């Protein structure tokens, strides 16, 4: 039996391809939107995975530094360290800073940690040039996205820092590049006021005693100890909020990334609906262009099923070709976006399923036109 859909597409191949490319670009944007969401999750987890701590001890009744402000004393790390079940502990700070750069300041998240401590948040596998910090003053490790290179000098606050290492693929949950400082330097940047400010505070009777604050204490648990029980002990005796690594991930994904995810999800749904409407309109127009031929086929006695299958097949082929072009488009462009785009095969398969369903829905309008086409319209001019 003649495949009418195949013949029709072959007859107007260039038009069909251009149309599929147009719809494909739209689907490519859908894939990129999903990729943006995946990128958000991926970036949110980079630092958590690199730190690889079992417990996050933060200011009581707060959700920790990724969700809200949290301050604890640095020496809490020693108190935690001596508790039952704790293997290692360390203090850590996080702060947004602007690195002065020749073109424009670069917004980064600075991670401060004790470089002589037992927990190091810098994943050595991510260092692409230079080294990790060896001195606890005025050294900095930056991400390649910042544009700085080893031995570059960066003026921060009152001091000048030397870039000693450059990492790749290290970003914060907000997508900003990460830089690493020693805990002392980070505390100074975050908590130490200018001399005039200190003088003013002292005149008011306020001691500038906060420079030994950190944002969180991180700890690992010895083998054989239950992480949740250790967390409960810390909560009970130290009056702190304690989160396991899994809970911290949930805070990041549910509380921090959730709104962005919903926004992206809504955009994605709108784009899929728009794509469906566009496919439906294209198929409707293609059906209208053939309405005389369809009337003739009906007049000659061809069953509706044959004509309807032509329309449905054409719609499905348009959807499939658009999906292929969408994938090509998204893979060609994803690395040009400023934020990380993670394209995953299961997402592409999911979109493929959605497009097949959308194409079938989109074909209804063309099918309806076929069914209502009057065979008598073939007669006369």
């Amino acid at each position, binding site marked *: 039996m*003649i495949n009418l859909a195949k013949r029709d597409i072959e007859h107007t191949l260039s038009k069909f391809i251009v149309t599929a490319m147009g719809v494909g670009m739209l689907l490519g944007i859908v894939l990129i939107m999903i990729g943006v969401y995946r990128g958000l999750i991926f970036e949110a987890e980079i630092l958590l995975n690199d730190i690889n701590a079992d417990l996050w001890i933060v200011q009581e009744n707060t959700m920790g530094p990724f969700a809200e402000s949290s301050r604890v004393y640095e020496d809490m790390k020693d108190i935690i360290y001596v508790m039952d079940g704790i293997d290692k502990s360390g203090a850590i700070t996080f702060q947004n800073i602007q690195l002065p750069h020749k073109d424009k300041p670069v917004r980064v998240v600075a991670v401060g940690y004790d470089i002589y401590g037992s927990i190091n948040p810098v994943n050595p596998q991510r260092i692409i040039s230079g080294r990790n910090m060896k001195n606890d003053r005025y050294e900095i490790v930056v991400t390649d996205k910042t544009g700085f290179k080893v031995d570059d000098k960066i003026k921060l606050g009152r001091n000048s820092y030397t870039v000693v290492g450059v990492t790749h693929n290290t970003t914060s949950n907000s997508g900003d590049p990460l830089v690493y400082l020693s805990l002392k330097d980070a505390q100074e940047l975050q908590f130490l006021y200018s001399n005039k400010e200190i003088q003013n505070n002292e005149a008011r009777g306020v001691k500038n005693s906060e420079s030994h604050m950190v944002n969180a204490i991180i700890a690992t648990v010895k083998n054989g100890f239950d992480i949740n029980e250790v967390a409960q002990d810390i909560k009970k005796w130290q009056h702190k909020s304690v989160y396991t690594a899994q809970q911290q991930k949930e805070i990041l994904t549910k509380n921090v990334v959730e709104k962005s995810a919903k926004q992206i999800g809504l955009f994605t749904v709108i784009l899929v609906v728009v794509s469906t409407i566009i496919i439906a309109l294209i198929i409707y127009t293609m059906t209208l262009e053939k309405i005389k031929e369809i009337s*003739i086929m*009906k*007049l*000659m*006695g061809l*069953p509706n099923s044959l004509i309807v299958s032509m329309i449905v097949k054409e719609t499905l082929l348009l959807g499939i070709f658009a999906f292929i072009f969408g994938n090509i488009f998204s893979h060609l462009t994803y690395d040009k976006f400023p934020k990380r785009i993670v394209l995953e095969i299961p997402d592409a398969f999911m979109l493929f399923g959605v497009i097949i369903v959308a194409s079938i829905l989109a074909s209804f309008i063309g099918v309806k036109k076929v069914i209502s086409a009057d065979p*008598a319209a073939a007669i006369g001019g």
Partner: protein
Amino acid sequence: MSKIAIKVQNLVKNFGKGDNLVKVIENASFEIKKGELVALIAPSGAGKTTLLMMIGCVYEPTSGEIWLGEEKVYDNKWTAKDTRRIRREKIGFIFQAHYLIPFLNIIENITLLPQTNGVSEKAAKQKAMELLEYLEIADKAYSMSSQLSGGQNQRVAIARALANNPEIILADEPTAALDAQRSISVIKMLKKIAIEQNVAIITVTHDERILPYFDRIMKIENRSIVFHKLDKEQNEII
């Protein structure tokens, strides 16, 4: 085996109801034999196409009876659920323009209907090639209709109408788009087909130049069917 291809009895077709009732055909009764080429003439709006569409099982009559060959297809209602099946198996259509499906090549245009009727692709192609040879356009079998002239396309349309071995061909002004020479050529071809393929052909026409080639002339007058003869010397309907 009956020689009658089309038998119509007391056929009535009205449109609308009550004050808006329009009577188009009233008590039309006629027979057309196999091998006959009949012209259907009437002024515009007199009901030519309506009559053609009723015989072609497209428009449902208001009342009456229609036989196509041995099969009574209408007896105050369609006797078959699927009138499209009747069209597919018994009737060939030819239109003013060729209306070939532009995305199919010539042989596919001709084999589409037989294949839908269950004829194998090979057998349908063989029959199509025979028809194309019969109509002297076999060399165009794998061309697209856009590559053929108007006259060649109309011959392909005739081949398509013959592809399902119909008992009847209904032609709606098949020469309207052609010049005089090509019109006569097409109508001679229809005449030849009617005789050689033993097919009844009803042709709606306004073209008086081709009337001498018809066996009979059927005219709709005052909503009734009247058969006329042609004074071939004067080329006038009597």
